[in-house]
């Protein structure tokens, strides 16, 4: 098992001691989401100093800590202080013998909008303060502690495995597994049930306009917890009790049964829900999704339609309907339906955010030395930055890469169409169902009503519509003939009346799609050229990574995987690794069920390697919690056998005792705790 060392505690140096605490207090009034990550503040002095007063303040962030009560928090602070005091710290190039005088742990509770702070004075003394949004102190209660605990776990689960390739993401943070013991999970489940009807206070996914009882961050975290721990029975029991109060959340019971592979039960539950309320949009959507997965599109179509009619403000059923149309080859209907989708604007995904902007020179980001792996732990960030600055400019800043929320989903649907039809045909379908510029002159000279201007207004705000002009200029040539129309029965009417105006956001997705396709087509042409010349194509790792992402967005999974693989030939890249891992895991399950062409052992080896690399990379960045990697290990162990995996890890990665075996063991022992893998012998 790994343990915390000085090398795995990042710190940011304050200008004045305690300023981060003050800044945290100052922002309390402006928090409208799950809030900032937990934070540890340390007041330190040089240990042989005569004054006995702290000379330096530092802080760093945390997720996943057990914050169920102040004693547990105080114990954590004690252990951090011990680790720092234990021996001289390598501090900005020098060895400093620090002594921690005071340590404070802050954790935000979004239910009651309060910040709980536990302060430990060394050698003795623990103090608890709970601050409301105005910074006033209030009394703590058991209920409040439950909220604090649940909110911290929701933050940890919701933000785990977030793609952190963004430059603005928080690095001075330790992420630990919030569900290490069964007691922790049990307490979270208890809290979930007690706080369920306040879940909407925690906000919801960026794909949803408004949080509901059945769909919000608390529920998402609960489902993540259930998926990770496999505590299906307990979870179902809880949902059953809650359902009796609010029937609209029945679909969650079906969902968990599906997660538990209890399909028959899930089908029965969904059936009963819509029998009782044929307008339950969530249950109908789940049913439709189920039928799409079962490839029963004949059943999915009426279900998605009904779901959409029952909840027309909700993006999900619309997207299922579009998907059904695509998979049945009804591309014109798919485009028209896509055009009517209710988009969620002005909403961002919840991510962990700093409370202030520290300067790079104030950041102490040590290299943990207990676990190392050549090329991964030692990835040189300066080299990566140089690569970044020299990257092929056509690959950088492709706007489709930064699509958010429902716009990203709509883009996926559009790429699914183009993947099937090709660009030329897609343009024909587009011309056929949407009014093109100049086609309709009726509105000439008439002013717009406020309402219309209003819609325009929103769209202007919308980050998507960077440049329709641009698009028009460089759009591929369109041919005048229309493809066979699905609507030819209405041909008696004047043509424009059968068409819709294309929403501006959709118009812009076409533009982004064009950009992606252009890059991808160029890549493929280049590749063919090189192959014909029998010369190897050279790209930097970042360029392979970005090319792979374009291919992936366009649905060319194999091509994407080969790009990521090529990217990893030169150096380690966390994004290439995790994308490739995802590809193999997906591939893996299809291998299992379908063909036996690929030697399975080979695949297992690759998955293990990628998983281990990422575990080490995470560990290097003080992160010990990744549900994706845990689940990847779980599958491996259950297929290959625990003994085999353990020995392979030892032989292949840890022959020099570099701590990798311990790291893998951390995760295996978690799986062990929940009985998800065979017991250690």
């Amino acid at each position, binding site marked *: 098992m790994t343990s915390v060392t000085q090398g795995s505690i990042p710190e940011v140096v304050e200008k004045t001691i305690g300023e981060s605490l003050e800044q945290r207090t100052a922002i309390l009034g402006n928090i409208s989401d799950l809030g900032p990550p937990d934070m540890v503040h340390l007041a330190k002095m040089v240990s042989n100093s005569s004054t006995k007063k702290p000379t330096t303040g530092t802080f760093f962030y945390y997720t996943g800590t057990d914050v169920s009560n102040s004693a547990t928090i105080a114990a954590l602070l004690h252990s951090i202080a011990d680790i720092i005091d234990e021996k001289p710290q390598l501090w900005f190039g020098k060895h400093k013998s620090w002594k921690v005088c005071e340590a404070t742990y802050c954790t935000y509770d979004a239910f009651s909008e309060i910040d709980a702070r536990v302060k430990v004075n060394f050698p003795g003394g623990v103090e608890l303060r709970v601050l409301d949004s105005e910074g006033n102190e209030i009394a703590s209660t058991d209920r409040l502690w439950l909220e604090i605990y649940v909110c911290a776990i929701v933050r940890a689960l919701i933000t785990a495995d977030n793609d952190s390739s963004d430059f603005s993401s928080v690095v001075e943070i330790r992420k630990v597994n919030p569900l290490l013991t069964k007691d922790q999970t049990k307490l979270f489940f208890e809290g979930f049930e007690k706080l369920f009807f306040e879940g909407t206070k925690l906000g919801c996914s960026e794909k949803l306009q408004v949080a509901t009882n059945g769909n919000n961050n608390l529920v998402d975290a609960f489902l993540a917890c259930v998926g990770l721990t496999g505590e299906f029975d307990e979870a179902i029991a809880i949902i059953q009790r809650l359902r009796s109060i609010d029937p609209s959340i029945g679909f969650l019971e079906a969902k968990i049964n599906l997660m538990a592979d209890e399909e028959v039960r899930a089908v029965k539950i969904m059936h009963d829900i819509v029998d009782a309320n044929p307008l339950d949009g969530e249950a109908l959507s789940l049913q439709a999704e189920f039928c799409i997965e079962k490839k029963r599109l004949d059943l999915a179509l009426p279900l998605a339609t009904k779901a959409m009619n029952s909840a027309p403000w909700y993006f999900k059923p619309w997207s299922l309907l579009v998907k059904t149309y695509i998979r049945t080859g009804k591309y014109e209907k798919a485009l028209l339906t896509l055009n009517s989708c209710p988009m969620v604007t002005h909403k961002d995904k919840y991510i962990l955010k700093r409370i202030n902007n520290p300067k790079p020179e104030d950041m102490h980001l040590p290299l943990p030395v207990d676990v190392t792996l050549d090329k991964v732990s030692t990835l040189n960030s300066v080299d990566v930055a140089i690569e970044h600055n020299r990257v092929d400019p056509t690959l950088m800043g492709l706007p489709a890469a930064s699509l958010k929320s429902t716009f990203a989903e709509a883009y996926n649907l559009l790429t699914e169409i183009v993947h099937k039809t090709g660009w030329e045909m897609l343009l024909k379908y587009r011309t056929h169902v949407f009014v093109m510029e100049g086609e309709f002159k009726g509105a000439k000279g008439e002013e717009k009503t406020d*309402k219309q201007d209003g819609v325009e207004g929103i769209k202007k705000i919308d980050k998507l519509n960077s440049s329709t002009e641009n698009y028009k200029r460089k759009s591929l040539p369109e041919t005048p003939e229309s493809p066979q129309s699905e609507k030819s029965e209405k041909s008696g*009417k004047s043509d424009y009346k059968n068409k819709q105006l294309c929403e501006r956001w959709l118009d812009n997705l076409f533009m982004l799609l064009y950009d992606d396709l252009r890059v991808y087509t160029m890549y493929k042409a280049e590749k063919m050229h090189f192959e014909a010349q029998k010369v190897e194509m050279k790209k930097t790792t970042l360029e392979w990574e970005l090319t792979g992402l374009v291919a992936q967005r366009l649905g060319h999974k194999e091509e994407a995987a080969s790009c990521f693989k090529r990217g990893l030939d030169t150096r380690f890249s966390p994004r290439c690794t995790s994308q490739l891992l995802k590809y193999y895991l997906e591939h893996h399950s299809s291998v299992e069920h379908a063909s036996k062409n690929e030697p399975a052992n080979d695949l297992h080896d690759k998955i293990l390697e990628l998983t281990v690399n990422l575990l080490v990379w995470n560990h290097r960045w003080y992160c010990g919690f990744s549900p994706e990697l845990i689940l990847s290990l779980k599958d491996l162990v259950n297929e290959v056998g625990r003994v085999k995996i353990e020995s392979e890890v030892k032989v292949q990665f840890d022959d020099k005792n570099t701590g990798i075996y311990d790291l893998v063991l951390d995760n295996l022992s978690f799986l062990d705790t929940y009985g998800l893998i065979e017991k250690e012998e």
Partner: protein
Amino acid sequence: MVEVSLTVGKLDASLALLLTKDHHIIEFPTILLPDGISTGSIVKIACERDFEGEEKESKQFDALQKTIYETFGKHEPKEPALKV
């Protein structure tokens, strides 16, 4: 049944602005308007609850639910038995 007379105030590619006698503005899909309409035209819109349609829809939905339940809800779908 509700029947109203509406004046076409503006006609766009996909939306028309219709005005009621009480100066409600209705945005109405052009596609649902009869042919030959232009600004200033008057249209009659009759709106009626379609009990028959509701009944039909309800029956179809029940049948759909039954099919799904029969197909997936009784037992795990069997692997096709290969005859030897």
